[in-house]
């Protein structure tokens, strides 16, 4: 069962070493599927298609600092308890940050 771990409002207090250790622990456990940091909100761009079929590109959106989606992981574990255990070990869960765990729906 795959889960997306969304890293919200990660603090600058997290060290590079902490992130590297966490990344390695996921790989060592054999549950790492994917995972990346994301560019800061000022680098984001929104796209949508109008009713007239026109492509519209805008700057943003911006979010409150503590809500900023800073990165994600995808892990493959047996159940939600395992997923939240791994989320709890992520540096992003500490120092005021939080992790959101969402199941990935697979149509087979």
């Amino acid at each position, binding site marked *: 069962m795959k889960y997306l771990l969304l890293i919200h409002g990660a603090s600058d207090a997290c060290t590079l070493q902490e992130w590297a250790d966490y990344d390695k622990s996921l790989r060592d456990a054999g549950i790492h599927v994917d995972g990346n940091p994301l560019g800061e909100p000022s680098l984001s761009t929104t796209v949508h298609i109008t009713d007239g079929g026109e492509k519209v590109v805008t700057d943003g959106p911006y979010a409150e600092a503590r809500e900023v989606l800073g990165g994600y992981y995808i892990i493959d574990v047996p159940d*939600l308890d395992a997923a939240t255990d791994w989320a709890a070990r992520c540096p992003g869960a500490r120092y005021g940050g939080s992790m959101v765990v969402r*199941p990935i729906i697979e149509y087979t």
Partner: protein
Amino acid sequence: MTGDVNASVEAIFREERGRLLAALVRRFGDLDLAEEVTSEAIEAALLHWPADGVPASPGAWLMTTARRRAVDRLRRDKTYAARLALLQVEADRSGPPVFEGALPDERLRLFFTCAHPALPEADRGALTLRYLAGLTTAEVARAYLVPVETMAKRLVRAKKKISVARIPFRVPEPHELPSRLPGVLQAIYSIFTEGYAASAGPDLVRHDLAEEALRLARILHRLLPGEREVTGLLALLLLTHARRAARTGPDGGLVLLEDQDRSLWDRAMIDEGEPLVVTALTGGPPGPYGVQAAIAALHDEEPTDWPQIVGLYDVLRSLTPSPVVDLNRAVAVAMRDGPEAGLALLDALAGEPRLRSLHVYPAARGELLRRLGRPAEAAEAFRAALELVGSEPERRHLLARLDEVTG
């Protein structure tokens, strides 16, 4: 004759439904399938037992029937079977459960699933009533005074999360228990308090709900006999429920502790609860349910030992600080030191946001002001309480008090 058989069939189902469901969830890893075949097995029993007699081992009969139905269903529906296949493999890895003789009791897993922290707190009691107490959706809806469709939607949504986000059916590891057990206890306690001081409706005490909570606490206590807080919860429910008959007058109105006819207290329930309090408070630091049970035990004694009750509220406050505990402590202080002392503590809680919606805060203030001979302020407090009160007997009690201070 048929009536007798039906009555015994009903009795068995009450006891067996939760057990059967839990065992099937363990076997198939799917709440929907387990629920469906549990109902089918019970329907089959209703059909066959009145004619053929109740089998020697009704639980095993139901289990065998339900498993056959589940296998049939999985044969018919290959996609469903494929989705469950992986779960089954995972379940089988820990050894297939044995159904010879007594059914293995898998209900503890289900308790933890129904009270899982990833589910909305408001739904955990409802899920526990539905899947462990074996109530129908309509009965659960009645318990929470909501329309059946509303409750059905809530249960379906919760079940969907259990299934899709895969909330597991498992008993937490010992090191996880301190963080997970309080959720299970809270779910049962919330059922009890809903039954006990019904937040709305014509009755003050809804015995059926309180008794379901008591039954669930007994089951949990049998499953986790060594957990002192489980013992504490069971003791708390017994010692509180023991006063049920004295809490309402002949007209259904509220009777305060000091005015209660003590001969109406349930001695057997008090005798069962008291040793459990001792167990709950022995062998380690006390937990909040153990302390509340001790407070309930002191309320069941005559005369009420208010100094010790205040002391226990101090302990409770250090374990689970909350304005509601402060409110109860203030009332106990009023009983120990007089209304003036209690009122000073209550006034210090004014503006506390978590008390703003509770009628008991102004009601307690009104009561103390009345005793202090300050009728105008008492009336104002009773009027504020009447704005917030939900249950009819409490409303009548407050109206009578208001009459008294304005009359």
